[in-house]
Structure formats: C-alpha cells, structure tokens
C-alpha cells in the first residue's frame, strides 16, 4: 500500500504541469484597456464612429480566436502605441509613471517626519509617557478648594 502511494505521489510530481488554459478574450475585458483615438477616452465609455470601428476590429479578432495579448498587439500594429490606455515609458509621458511614485515617497516621508516631530514634542512633558498631571495653577486652585472643603 505504501509503495502504491509513493508511486502515485512520484507520478504526480514528475508529470509535466498541464498547460494553463488560456482565457478566452472578451470585448468587455479589452475595452477598458484601449483608447478611442478620436475621443481621448477609454473605449468602454466612447460612442464615436472611431470607437465603433475599433470595437468592430476587436470583435473580428476575438471571433478569430486571438488571445487578449494578440489583440492588443494587433491594435498597436494598426493604430500605434497610443491606442493602449497606458502612457509610454519615454518622453513627457514618463511623468505619468514617475509622479505617483514620487508622490507616494513624498507622502511617506511626510508621515515619517510628522510622526517624529510629534514624538519629540511630547517627550519633555511626559518622560514616562504617563499622565502629565495638573497644571501648577490648577493644582494650587485644587488645594485651595480642598482646604476650604475640609474647613
């Protein structure tokens, strides 16, 4: 029995992995990653004649059984790289990639600096991090009130 299980495990481990099934491309999946070149908006929210023609082109490729990547490659070949709803990684469009990264780093640095400043500001008054106690004026007033109450 043990040898049978070992054999089954060995077969399972040695068997080549089944190729991952390629998901069938769909218009709705591609539309939001493609631009309507005339409208300057994503294809899924565009209603111009150019957008209709682009959709027709994609639908034809889907009918031919092309994958999503093959369709995007064909779109770039026919319409140029601007047809994809992502900025290029050169020239001025590079800023579209850099600005979010720089902004995120800036925000992190700001949070770190602010936290450090807060911690420094609190230290002199509360060395042990406990209750800071009463203001001297308040303490005097409290003592006076208590004394009056005792009388």
């Amino acid at each position: 029995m043990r040898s049978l299980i070992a054999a089954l495990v060995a077969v399972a481990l040695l068997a080549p992995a089944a190729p991952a099934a390629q998901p069938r491309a769909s218009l709705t999946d591609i539309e939001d990653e493609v631009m309507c070149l005339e409208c300057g908006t994503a294809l899924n929210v565009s209603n111009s004649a150019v957008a209709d023609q682009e959709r027709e082109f994609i639908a034809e490729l889907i009918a031919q059984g092309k994958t999503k990547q093959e369709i995007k490659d064909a779109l770039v070949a026919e319409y140029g790289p601007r047809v994809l709803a992502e900025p290029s990684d050169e020239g001025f469009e590079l800023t579209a990639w850099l600005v979010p990264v720089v902004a995120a780093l800036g925000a992190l640095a700001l949070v770190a600096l602010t936290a450090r400043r807060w911690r420094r500001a609190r230290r002199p008054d509360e060395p042990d991090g406990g209750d800071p106690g009463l203001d001297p004026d308040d303490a005097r007033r409290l003592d006076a009130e208590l004394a009056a109450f005792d009388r």
Partner: protein
Amino acid sequence: MRARAYWPVTIAAALLVGLLAYGLTTTGADTTLDAAMAKGERVDPPTTDSLPVLGGDGTGSLADYAGKVVLVNVWASWCPPCKEELPLIQETHEMMSARDGTVLGIDVKENSGAALEAVEEYGLTFPNLRDRDGSFVREWGQTGYPENYVIDRNGKVAAVRRAPVTREWLDETLPPLLEESA
C-alpha cells in the same frame, strides 16, 4: 520652522501648475498654417514625416512627390463627409495626374482593412498613407474631417481647406498652381 515646512508644498504646487499649463498649451490646434494662408503666404509644410503606405510595404512622404502639385486629402472611412467627397477627390486626381500633379490621401485613425474596403468601394487610384494615431495631421493644425491641403511644385503649402472641398474651390485653387513651373 513653519516657513521651512511650506517649501515642499510650494514646489509641489508649482509642479502641478506647470503640468496643467503644459497640458493646456499642447491640446489646442496649431493655427500657424491658417495665419500664413490668411496673409496669402506660401510656407513649408509643418511636417513631411514618413508614414506607412496603405495596402503596401514601407513608408512614403510628401518628399516622394517633389516637383508635383499635391492635393493632400485627410480622410477616414468612419467619417461620412469624407466618404461623400471621395468621388470628387478621385475625379480631381485623374485631372491632376494628367498635368503632373496628384492627390495624396492620408487615412487617419483606422485599421488598414477598413480603409482598403473604402479604397475598393470608391475605386480610389491615388496613393494613400496611414496616419495611424492622427499625430501627423495634428501637426498641420487639423481641426476636423475631412481636410485638404495643396502643395505647390516648390513643396510649399499654397492652400488649406478645413472642410469638405467643393468643385468651385478646386477649380479656383488647382489650375493656377498646375500652370506654375517649379
């Protein structure tokens, strides 16, 4: 202390304003060509970049037609007014090619299959280049479809029409240019 905290905010705001200004200045149509035409001047084409040939291999450009009068017709099959003027444009090409001129079509923002269907449907015999994303015609200050530009024998822009052509406009504009020598 507080003043020191303001400078990153100031720099960030300046960068944002700069980006906004850049966006605003680059989205409007270039009117240089129109201003020159209004003064009756002939000017160099805004660009003579090479473009892919429609239905063929390789690229072509205005430079391939040096010495000829060229009617540059900006069109697309998804544009009904463009299709309406195509028969007149084809007729004009036949007239011009007999007089050392040509029509050069610039098919904009469409896949070559759709464009070639229109070429066949309208029996177009003039050469066509593909401006795949419209960046070529943008440099010409394009504002709509169709548009037509006329290049004289010296390679200068002699006329611009940012609307469908009419027979009257063609008859007024082309014959004098076809008469000229380089």
